[in-house]
């Protein structure tokens, strides 16, 4: 059993997926959504060209555990600014937020790009060559830590 197989999803965990901004690249988010569903998660797929506000709205409506934002077209750096604040304002400041794709314009050092997005308040950022396996492992790890924290707190 690979690490990813071990990291099976749970139907009690709801994930919002979609592509932010004026971005039409739907293939990655669609394949990701299929994969996450197959792995056992409940997936709410918003598709391409999704305004930031719609992610937040959908997350509230479905009491989502994580928001999985795709941005491919390079303008994500503008679209994603303030996304965490939006969540905080909407009262879901603690939701897990991932972002992945071609997150900036041009080929830039990944370490810098990642840091930029972490600074924006994303929990994790994923480079263009990300595949499902890596995402499943990350989700499992983050949910288990959070579960722990919730338990410890609760």
């Amino acid at each position: 059993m690979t690490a990813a197989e071990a990291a099976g999803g749970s139907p009690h965990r709801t994930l919002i997926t979609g592509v932010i901004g004026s971005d039409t690249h739907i293939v990655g988010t669609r394949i990701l959504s299929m994969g996450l569903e197959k792995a056992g998660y409940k997936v709410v797929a918003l598709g391409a060209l999704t305004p930031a506000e719609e992610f937040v709205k959908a997350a509230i409506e479905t009491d989502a555990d994580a928001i999985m934002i795709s941005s491919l077209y390079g303008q994500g750096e503008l679209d994603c600014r303030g996304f965490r604040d939006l969540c905080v304002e909407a009262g879901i400041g603690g939701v897990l937020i991932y972002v992945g794709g071609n997150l900036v314009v041009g080929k830039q050092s990944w370490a810098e790009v990642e840091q930029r997005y972490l600074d924006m308040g994303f929990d994790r950022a994923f480079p263009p060559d990300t595949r499902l396996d890596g995402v499943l492992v990350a989700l499992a790890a983050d949910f288990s830590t959070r579960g722990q924290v919730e338990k410890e707190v609760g």
Partner: protein
Amino acid sequence: MSAKASPDAVPFSEARIPDDDFARMREENLARWPTGAGVDFEAAVDRHLALPEHKRLGFVMRRADAEGRCLTQPRGGFATFEMQKELMQALDRDGLADVVPTTTDSYTRNERWPQAEAGVEESKKLGRSMLNGFPIVNYGVDICAELVAAIDKPAIVLSGTAMPRLTSEIVLAGGYSGYLGSGIAYTTSYTKEVSIEDGIRNYQYLDRLAAMYAERGVDLHRRQPGFLTGTNIPPCIAIVVAVLDVLLAAGQGVRNYGLELGQALHLIQDSAAIHACRELCQEYLEKKGYDDVFTPVISLHWMGAWPYDDAQAAALLAYGGTLGAVGGAVSVTTKSTHEAFGLPTPEKNVEGLKITRMAIYLARHTRLDDNPEFLEEKELIGREVRPIVDKVLEMGDGDAALGTVRAIEAGVLDIPWSPNRQCQSRILPARDTDGYLRILEAGDMPFPKDVLEIHEAKLRRRAERDGVPYDQDLAVTSVFEMSEKLADLMPFAWGEGH
């Protein structure tokens, strides 16, 4: 500014927009953003007529076709005028591009001009482009003219959008002699909420505008983006859309109309597609009574996911030149070794052009026009395309515009991996054992039974070869295929290797 232009009073059909309606539509359109006021049609006609022939894309495409040449054209857009000018000059001079592009940014494409404005400011502040293209509406007509003047080749605008009305007014007024985009192709692949009807209307506007220039002796080059969603589009799907889009353009009076095809990455299939595309478009144009539309085919570097490795990407660049040259394309639209990561620097863009150009040079003599496998594949494409186009036209009672809208709603015309809500997007392509793109699931598209059997048989053979079930995963693995590591694609075949 509004994301959608106001609905036109003209009833929706393939018919030519009446002149007075068009005049009114133009007026409304140009008023949507301050730079619209800079458009002066008479001055624009003079500007075009003053350009030397070799800077007019209409002329250059016709001559390239007549002389059997295969041109190269890159893509390219950055946020500010300075960046854009430098880029275009590098592509022209260092890259030897035969056609120099200006790609617009995605805010512009969605008519979010205030956001584009902010992107420009941010880019200036940070000293790097924060936009994925040049916000040409914000910059306006005079800047267009400056960019055209900065190069010694024809200039084309690339703006993947369903809403080209204002952008096209401005760039054509500024001296750009080529404009890429079409109602069916772009609406199905670049938008989520825009209706097919609106998309078609918007491009009818642009086509009418181009035809208005033509009536004044300005032979602009309009072009259809047949690559669609770029994701394993089988030739027949691209060509069905090309046929319908060219009929719509011809309906508005366009006579110089390029047909783009994304490469399937198979020497035979791509050659067959290039030939079939032109022939089938001409066949239907003729049926509709148009015998004077010039329809050169342009071959596009692989439009799906690219490898992350420079060497692998270089091979894909070169092969793209080979495919275009051997297939007899009139031009190849190029990418770079940075494709999988992000917009290329001018240097990398230039490199992509040069690799492609040399590949074209090397293969420029080779044609497969009487190769049996080529002839067979070309014939198959005809058997795929005609039933769909005929059905679409039938659904529109002979009208391509109405037929298209109804056919897409019904799934009779379907696009793989489309983000558009009106599009069923149930058709699913995959690559077969021989490297051809085939149809795994046809959705509701009325392909003949015997044709679908051919596709299924070939894909079943692939499932067998790979030892995997015959299911959707064949399509998903085909999406990733070209981006896989070489060591996975073609490992050492014996022993463990490393």
